[in-house]
Structure formats: structure tokens, C-alpha cells
């Protein structure tokens, strides 16, 4: 059994091209299912099949109109040309969150790590490429203005397909900017009282236990 639409006995009714291979598929199949159905080569970027892992990045051509998207979220249609994109290359921006000691200098850190973020030329490439409809450009502007919590909120549904990184002519790497914003917000500002209270309780219990052990000795 597979997730492939159960169309046994029916004739394929959609003709498209996947990675250069002419493919006949059925209405209602996603591009992933169509690629499997035809045994299309080099389709290694498939993961969750429900639009949350961001792996099955495809470039789509309809006539002269070229777009990008996720193959598991796009349905087979006539005459569409599909190319599965290779995985993203290693990121160009480097930081380890444990290196951040002080929230007061976070903006300086951000500008060191992501200097391109303030050079956005408002081409909307990131917005158009986002399969989740995130207002990426606005998110980057918020980050560049130091508004990390709001910027991170913009990227809430980001699945790290990194298509915006590919689209950006300034090499801003918006997906990583968004994740940076979300991470520093939690790292510095998420301090829930119920969790802190329980952690302290457990620490005392452990300490009590250690002291008791020492007494026994």
C-alpha cells in the first residue's frame, strides 16, 4: 500500500514533465506522487509529504511563467515542467547561540552575523518564493530594525525550505534571519515561572538527597 492516489484501472489523464522525463499522472496526485508513479530520476528530496519539512523543493514552469514551490503541496497539471531542486548548500552565516552572553548587545551581534539584512532592495523575490505565504521581506525589515520578537513571529510557519535564500540577490538568507530572531527571543526572554519553580524544587530535592548521602557516610 502506498500513499499514491488509488487510481488502478483508470487511464492517466494529466501529462507533465518531471526532471526532463515525460510523465503521465492522474488528477489529484501531488508532484511527489507523480514523480514516484513515473520513476522519475534524482527525486531524493522528499520527506514528510505534508508540507512541514521543506525538502521537496521544485522549480515549476508553466509556459513562460517560472515559480518555485513544494512538490508535496502542488498537484499535477497538464504541461507543467517540474524540476526537483538540489538540497540547499551550507549556510554562509555562522553563530553559536551559546556564544551570546548578553542580550544588550544582541543588535551588534546581529549586524555582525547578518550584515546583508539591512541592504534589502525590496525586490519581493523572497515573498514570491515562499510556499507558506510568509511576508518574508517585512520580517527581514523588522529584524534589521532590531524587532526580533515581531520578526520571529512573522516566520512562525517557516519550514526551512530556504527557497527565499535562493531568491535573494543580496544573499541575506532570510530563512536563517527569521530563525535567528525566533531563537534569540526564546533564548533571552522565555522565562516561564512554572518551569523555573519546578526546576528549583528538583534542584533542592537533589541537593537534599546528596546531603543525606553525605550524612550517611
Amino acid at each position, binding site marked *: *500500500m*502506498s*500513499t*499514491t*492516489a488509488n487510481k488502478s484501472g483508470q487511464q492517466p489523464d494529466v501529462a507533465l514533465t518531471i*526532471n526532463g522525463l515525460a510523465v503521465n499522472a492522474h488528477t*489529484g496526485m*501531488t508532484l511527489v506522487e507523480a514523480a*514516484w508513479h513515473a*520513476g*522519475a*530520476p*534524482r*527525486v*531524493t*528530496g*522528499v*520527506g*514528510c*509529504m*505534508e*508540507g*512541514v*519539512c521543506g*525538502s521537496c523543493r521544485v522549480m515549476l514552469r508553466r509556459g513562460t511563467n517560472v515559480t518555485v514551490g513544494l512538490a*508535496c*503541496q502542488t*498537484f499535477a497539471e497538464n504541461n507543467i515542467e517540474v524540476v526537483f531542486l538540489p*538540497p540547499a548548500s*551550507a*549556510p554562509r552565516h555562522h*553563530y*553559536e*547561540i*551559546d556564544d551570546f552572553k548578553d542580550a544588550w548587545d544582541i543588535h551588534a551581534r546581529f549586524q555582525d552575523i547578518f550584515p546583508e539584512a539591512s541592504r534589502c532592495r525590496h525586490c519581493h523575490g523572497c515573498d514570491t518564493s515562499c510556499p*507558506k505565504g510568509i511576508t518574508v521581506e517585512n520580517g527581514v525589515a523588522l529584524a534589521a530594525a532590531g524587532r526580533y520578537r515581531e520578526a*520571529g513571529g512573522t516566520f*512562525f*510557519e*517557516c*519550514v*526551512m525550505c530556504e527557497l527565499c535564500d535562493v531568491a535573494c540577490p543580496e544573499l541575506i538568507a532570510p530563512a*536563517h534571519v527569521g*530563525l535567528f530572531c*525566533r*531563537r*534569540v*527571543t*526564546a*533564548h533571552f526572554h*522565555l*522565562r*516561564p*515561572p*512554572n*518551569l523555573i*519553580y*519546578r*526546576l528549583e524544587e*528538583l534542584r533542592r530535592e537533589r541537593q537534599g538527597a546528596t546531603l543525606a548521602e553525605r550524612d550517611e557516610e
Partner: protein
Amino acid sequence: MSNGIPLAEALARYRPDADIGLLPELADPKLADMDTLLNTYHPDHLRNSVIKLTVGTNAGDSCQRELAGLLQAEAFIDEADLAGTPVTDIDVLVIGGGGAGCAAALAAAEKGARVLLATKLRLGDSNTVMAEGGIQAAIEPDDTIQRHIQDTLRGGHHAGDPALVSAMAGDGPEVLRWLIRQGMQFEQTPSGDLHTRRAGGMSTARLVHCRDYTGLEMMRVLREAVIQHRSIEVWEQSPAVELLSNEHGQKCVGAVLTSLLDNQLRIVRTRSVILATGGLGRLHLNGFPTSNHLGATGDGLVLAYRIGARLRELDSFQYHPTGLVHPSHLSGKLVTEGVRAAGCLLVNGFGQRFIDELQPRDVVCSAILRECGEGRGVRIDDQRVGVWLDTPRLERANPGLLEKQFPNLMTRTRVSGIDPRTEPLLVHPTLHYQNGGAVIDANGATTVPGLYAVGEVAGGIHGRNRIMGNALLEIISFGRRAGIAATANRDRGPKKVTLEHVNRLRRALTLADMPMTQRAPRILPDYAAGGVWKR
């Protein structure tokens, strides 16, 4: 199973405001009835689905039939394949790029190890990224670690190992703190507390979450932390085809990886291997659809068994009650239990409730299979039948709740032109989780020296049924434990790497007169392997 109420008829009959009354007696089973329900309807008890293993450490134990075929199968490689293969030396090798693998890699790197993380698909392609419901940790004032332990053991029908369960539950609060330090966000109450929900099998509210994207939030944060870490190297598209043992076949000293991109073998020599390969939903046991990601083909179990690790509960799997039946491209994909935790009911084709929705998953699953089996399901065609998950009623009682708390569900269904606020969702149990796995200790160490197993590939925590939110806790708790323990292993490393353990299994298969036609691990399901992977 040709009976059931046709879809159109059931839809015409369905009313979100119908008076549903009290739970009928059938729906509130006593303990004894619960056992009968499980024994009669749970897929683990399907006739012919379980056999005895013939060879290996678990010879004589019960095992699901299709899995047994893979555990007792031929390997892909032998000594001749290793000649001239490039070798990489590293302190710790982590196999698997989901939450458990990332947590293990980060913990090992924090302790100063040089780590190689190899993953079959892309880093983060895992069940973690889809585990959106939440993570359990006893942090509310009325809750205790002890209650968390009790709920977990009871949910697992007391088959779990109390030492492992207590290690995991005790780690809960510290795990949340570690995740927050990595930069993971959680839902908060107006006063800043972590928001908790009560889900199936919990005696109190203990489920911490990030709306209905908990796994995605966890995975993207851990993925970024791993990518950014100076001491962790990542090899994507690099499934493991075999482990390596010392000259006696007794200790794990590395692994052989292949590549989906160039089909080249690579040898990795190391002091410690951490298996974090996840589950096996994509084997579609007993013909069920699955909620799992594409790479979940049980590779870790196969590799661990071949090198001599003891496994447990190989006949026990979790079928999540609410897998989607329709639309077909989402067949088997989950509607998070969080929806039921928020108050959503299950109703059959006659519009009746038939089970307390917050019973443990195996009970709810069996009850749905009973409704479908006895003709009270909603039928689309010969193969597709289910019951209603009554989302419109939930929306009616709490306007705006679905949009606000379950954006993931709304986005997914919107793509397919379905609106859960006005139409109920048709659901049927789907193969979700491997309850058992490799036997481990509190450090995640298997019975084979040098080999660790963490996450879904490990067994002993969830007994014969996992309750919601313990998977995300387990992967971080034991992932970190294994990462730390693996780094503490400071022996001189391997002198010789061999396939002695493979030869041992081949001898055993020959002596037992078993066929060696099938090769394992499976790497990819057949329907997806065509253009990528040749066995």
C-alpha cells in the same frame, strides 16, 4: 468489510449541533472490557501478523511478520566491498538526523567530541518535524514527576522499564530548559507560564506545546543548532547499510554508509555509534497507511539486530487513532491528538459517540476499528472507511479556536479545499509508532558495546503503548544522555573493522535453512525507490 454507511448518506445525516447526549455504555469501557476491545480489534492482534524469530539474539521471541523478514535477511555488503573504500575517523558517529540524532550530536559536541551526523535524507527529515502535538513535562503545581512516571507506565500496560521511564520523566523540566536555551519557543499563558494541555492517558495537564507546530519548531531549532555547530559535520543523503564490528564481531566500531547521490560506499571508524534512525511506518505493517515520513523504514532495528543487540516488544506498534482518510494524498497523515485534547469528539456514521476520546491511543484506535468493522463507519469506497472527527462541533463551542490553535491543520486542509470548521474530518487509525526497539540502559547503551540507540529505534520506555508527548521528551532526554555517555567512552578506538557479525548471522541463517533472498535494511519503500535507490 463491505458494510458501513455511504459517505453521502452519512454527510446528509451529520449535524454539528445534534444532541449527542451522554456517552453510551459501549463508549465507557471498564478495565476488563478494555482488554477485550484491544484483543479483538487492535492490529497487533490480527491473525497471522505475529511470528517467532528463528535466528539471532531474540530467537524464540514474538515479532511482527514483515519486520521479522527484515531482521532475518541478507546484508547488502561483504568484506570484498570494503577494500579500497574511503575511511573517515571520528569520535562519535550519529546515524539519523531527526530530533534524537540532533540532540545526541549536540550533547556529544558540548562535551568536546568531534561528531559526524549521517542522515538518509535531509537533516531534519524525520517524524520529529511532524510531531506537532507537544512534549510532556511535569511542571504544573498539581503535577509531580511521580505522576508522570505512573501515567507513562499505565499507558504502556506496565510493560515499560521503570528505570528508563523515571529517567525520562525526571529529565522533563530540564529538557524544556535546554530546548529554550537552544532557542525553542513555547505557548505561554498571559502570566508567562508555559501553557499545558491534558491529552490521552494523562492524569493532569502536562503537555507543553508551540501551537500545533511543536515538532516543526523543535526540529528547525535543533537543525540550525547542529548546522551551526563547529564540531559537528553533517552528511545528508547518506543512509547506513551496515554497522562494523571488531574482529570478534562483539563490539560496534563504526558503520558503512552509502550515498543516494553517487552510490559510493564510505567507511566511518569510531569509538561510539549512536543509532537514531527512528521508526518503521513506511514498511506499512499489516497493510496500514502511515503517518511517518518517507525514510521511516526500520533500518536501525535491522542493523542493531544483525550486530547482536537485543530488541524488545517487536510485536507492539502504535496505530494513531486519527489518520486522515480523505483527501487521498494525505491518506494516513495525522490530525494531532491536540484537537481531541482541546475537546473534539469522535462520532460514527450514525452520529453517535462511541468512546471516551481521551483514553490511551490503543484503546481509541481499537474502538474506531470496532465501529468500522461492525458497520457503523462512514464508507467512501471498498478500501476507504472511517469515522468523523467532529471539528465543526468544536468550532461551534469555541469560535475561532481551530484557526488560532491549529494553524497547521487549517493550512493543510485548505490546500485540499476542505474546511474543518464546517465539515467533519473522516479519520481511520494509521501506523504511527514502534513501541518497542533496541534494549537500552539509562545512558541509551544497547547490549552491544560501543552501540547506543535513542528515540523511536530504542525500546522499553513506552511499554506496549506510548502516550502523547512522551516521544518528543524521550528523544531529547535519551538523545542527550547517549551523546554524553558516548563521548565519555575514551578507549583507544578500533584496531580492526570487520563484518564478522554479518558472517555470524549468515551462518545462523544457513544452519536454520532460512532463505537469503531478501536484503535489508530497506532504505526506501518500493514505491519511492524507483529513480533513486537500487537494491
